[in-house]
């Protein structure tokens, strides 16, 4: 039985449908991600889980109990807000102790637990500091300490890292994951940053326009997006418009691209079968496109011209023109290639996803 389960949640604000028919399950001990562009309803979903918004319809179950209308203060979930929402009039100690005081814990226990929580977030000895004297990263840690100090049954994160700079963000990300694992907590994590979601989460739901488009393991989502919108949102993708030609040999289906007129074969299961002569979209990640100068009779080898090379540190992004079809490839070594060179782009069939265009 899942620990948290959302059933057909919907929420409207005036004229906008913020959340539409969202259902998902979070297993005990899982680090669950809600990923989507800003305005997709992920924060609203999180706030409904926290009890800060009441859904218009649908229900929320926690540990087998319906908590849809339970006020936030009685859910016992810890939440880390995007802007941290630290109490400016209280010092670090009192901020962390806030939830414990609300529970009327005895003072010695409060002191001990605040101390422990601050140690966990590597801020020991900061008790007496004013929160406005802390750096952004430290404020963020206080916010986390405050949320875990109450021994939450569920930990909710609302883009907690978005106010930090890049290096600090990556560092904190690792610590956060480790902390949650160590405490054996279940967490729901909202973010618009796919890299962050992939690094942190066990499972991810991708939300766009108030709906969950796809839920799954990060790798599955990345490599086999089920929908165009998911494919577009998760990382860079070459989206190729094509028409299905035939069932082809063995388990490969044959497509013809609209631009360039290349023949592409991909491995498709039955459920994805598209009727013949029907337009659809094929997706392949730039890093999966191989560039070679030799025609090795490989599957899906397309002749192309190098249009642009962008050096980006470890990799280079190479823009190719294959007879009108623009492709982007990532290569570790761009050496040997220069703009205007002719080459062969290989699109391995197992790397190509067929997207539903909804």
């Amino acid at each position, binding site marked *: 039985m899942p620990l948290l389960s959302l059933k057909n949640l919907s929420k409207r604000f005036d004229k906008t449908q913020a959340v539409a028919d969202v259902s998902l399950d979070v297993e005990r001990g899982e680090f669950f991600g809600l990923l989507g562009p800003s305005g997709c309803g992920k924060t609203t979903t999180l706030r409904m889980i926290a009890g800060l918004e009441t859904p218009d319809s649908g229900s929320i179950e926690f540990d087998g109990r319906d908590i849809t209308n339970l006020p936030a203060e009685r859910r016992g979930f810890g939440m880390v807000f995007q802007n941290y929402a*630290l109490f400016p009039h209280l010092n670090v100690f009192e901020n962390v102790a806030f939830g414990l005081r609300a529970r009327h814990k005895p003072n010695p226990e409060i002191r001990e637990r605040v101390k*422990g929580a601050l140690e966990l977030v590597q801020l020991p000895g900061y008790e007496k500091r004013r929160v406005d004297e802390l750096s952004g990263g430290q*404020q963020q840690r206080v916010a986390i300490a405050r949320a875990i100090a109450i021994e939450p049954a569920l930990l909710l994160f609302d883009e907690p890292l978005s106010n930090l700079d890049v290096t600090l963000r990556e560092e904190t990300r690792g610590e956060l994951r480790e902390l949650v694992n160590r405490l054996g907590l279940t967490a729901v994590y909202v973010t618009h940053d796919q890299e962050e979601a992939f690094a942190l989460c066990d499972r991810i739901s991708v939300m766009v326009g108030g709906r969950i488009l796809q839920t799954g393991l990060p790798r599955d989502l990345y490599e086999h997006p089920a929908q165009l919108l998911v494919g577009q949102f998760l990382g860079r993708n070459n989206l190729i418009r094509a028409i299905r030609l035939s069932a082809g040999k063995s388990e490969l289906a044959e497509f013809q691209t609209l631009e360039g007129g290349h023949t592409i074969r991909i491995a498709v299961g039955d459920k994805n079968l598209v009727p013949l002569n029907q337009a659809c979209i094929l997706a392949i990640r730039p890093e999966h496109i191989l560039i070679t100068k030799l025609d090795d009779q490989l599957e899906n080898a397309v002749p192309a011209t190098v249009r642009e090379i962008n050096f980006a540190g470890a990799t280079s992004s190479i823009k190719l023109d294959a007879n009108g079809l623009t492709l982007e490839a990532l290569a570790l070594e761009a050496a040997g290639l220069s703009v205007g060179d002719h080459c062969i782009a290989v699109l391995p069939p197992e790397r190509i996803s067929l997207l539903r265009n909804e």
Partner: protein
Amino acid sequence: MSEERPSSVGQRARPPRGQPAWGASHHRTSDGTAAALSPRLILLLIVVVVLLYGVIYPNLHVVIASLQRDGGWSLLNYREVLSQNIVLESIFASIGISVLTVLFCAGVGVPLAFLFERYTFPARRFFATLAALPLVLPPLVGTVAFIFLCGESGILARLVQSVFQLQHSPWSLRGWSALLLFHTYTMYPFFYILTGAGLSRIDASLAEAGRSLGAGKTRVLTRIVLPQLTPSLIAAALLTFMTSMASFSAPLLFGGGVRVLTLEIYTARQRGDARMALTETVVLAAISLSALVFFQRYEGTRKFAAAAMKGAAKRRKAVSAGYVRALAIACGVLFSVLLVLPVATLVLVSFAKEGSWTTQTLPSSYTLANYTKIFSDSSALEVFLNSLSMSAIAAGAALIWSFCVAALIARKGRRHWKRVLSWLILVPWALPGTVVAVSLAEAYGKPSPLLGSFILVGTFWILPVVYFLRFMPLVVRAVQASMEQIDAALEEAASSLGAQWWQRFTRVTLPLVWPGAIAGTLLAFVIALGEYVASVLVFVPHNRPISIAIASELRDFNLGAAAAYGVVLITVIGLIMILAGRLETSTSAG
């Protein structure tokens, strides 16, 4: 958090599998929504009852009377009033003066608030305190002091005259300029105090962020800081506009030929034309309340996202650059001297020997007679105690009341009844004090079915009630402005941490709103201390307030004694302010 051994918290933080968190909660109410709703209902009930008995019922007869003619309903009174050129002229003059007053007060108050709230320089606290000085100038003698200072035979005029060897006074203290000068002097503290309170709650790093994004100083100010200050600025503008609309003694004393609506009401009353006075009163209140609607609309369009604010507070910047520092200090000193002058003049008048100060720049001989007169008077102490206790009761009640109101209004979701509520609350502020007192006296002077045998007139409590009704809008506005500036996420954070509504209120909202609320309450307290126009109509022997004593001395031509009363009052207020300041810093430091 690498090599840290899991601490005791870490181990305990591991949730006992299968046990939901609310199991640990001390509060086991069967229905959570009911627990959250009922206090709100009680609040609503309190607010409705107070408004019904304090505002609607007493003032209804004013509106009804203005709509009646020869025993029947008619708009004739309005047609008559509004068809007179003199009335139209006075309406335009009132609006014009009030708009200009708002602009001038903002022009003085807002920069001052920035100067004192954002920068530190030597003696900043001292100057910052002085900047609120005009508030303590008691209304009756304050105008007199102003006349002795800036009037055509005042100290400044005489000084200029003697320096430049002029035959005649260089100016006269009459007309629009005199009115605006006095209004700006007495009303800019609304902007100064409310903006100051607002600024103290704005995160300076936001402005810094703006600067770092390449925005110039003016751009940061207009695009980042001012929009965040909007609630405070609007509250101040509204209070200033309404005060200016209802301003009476200034136009009476310095207006010269300027006719404003309050004066028209006054002369109509004096002529015995009660119907016209009533109708003009309704017109005045209507204008003031439409200003409220106007400001609210503006407020709606400029409402910033509260979530954009981090809960963390500002940092005060030290003015370091040599010339900027000198300039800031110079401005502070200059302002303070200007602000102190009327009070100093009042002190001078209180020590001047009557009849000795005629054509001289400063009095030629001094005396302590005025002080011995009031200190040897046994009733003087009583008068002070009366005023202090009644104002404190009224201000304290206003503070509690404004939290009731703010709790109902401030939170998300704008509905029509909220608008009506804030309207009704401001009605007593929009009405001239005389009208508030008269309607209360008439409504609560006789037993009526609505009241049972409850009669307020002739008791000690009538004045605290009048003060409460007249000045609670001030506190409500201040609290509302503070509440609107609080990041909504703070309360949400508190509730996600398990705090019940009253824990959220006392531990999060209250401490954050406190500075603004205290500022507003002190403002109401101080203004109530000097209230005259309403007091004179309802005071009783046992609650004779200080303003009546001052007026009494003035009527007996004891200008010096009246000034002495004023000086003592200012001293008392000053002491209270210092005490309050101490209290505030000691609580906020804790």
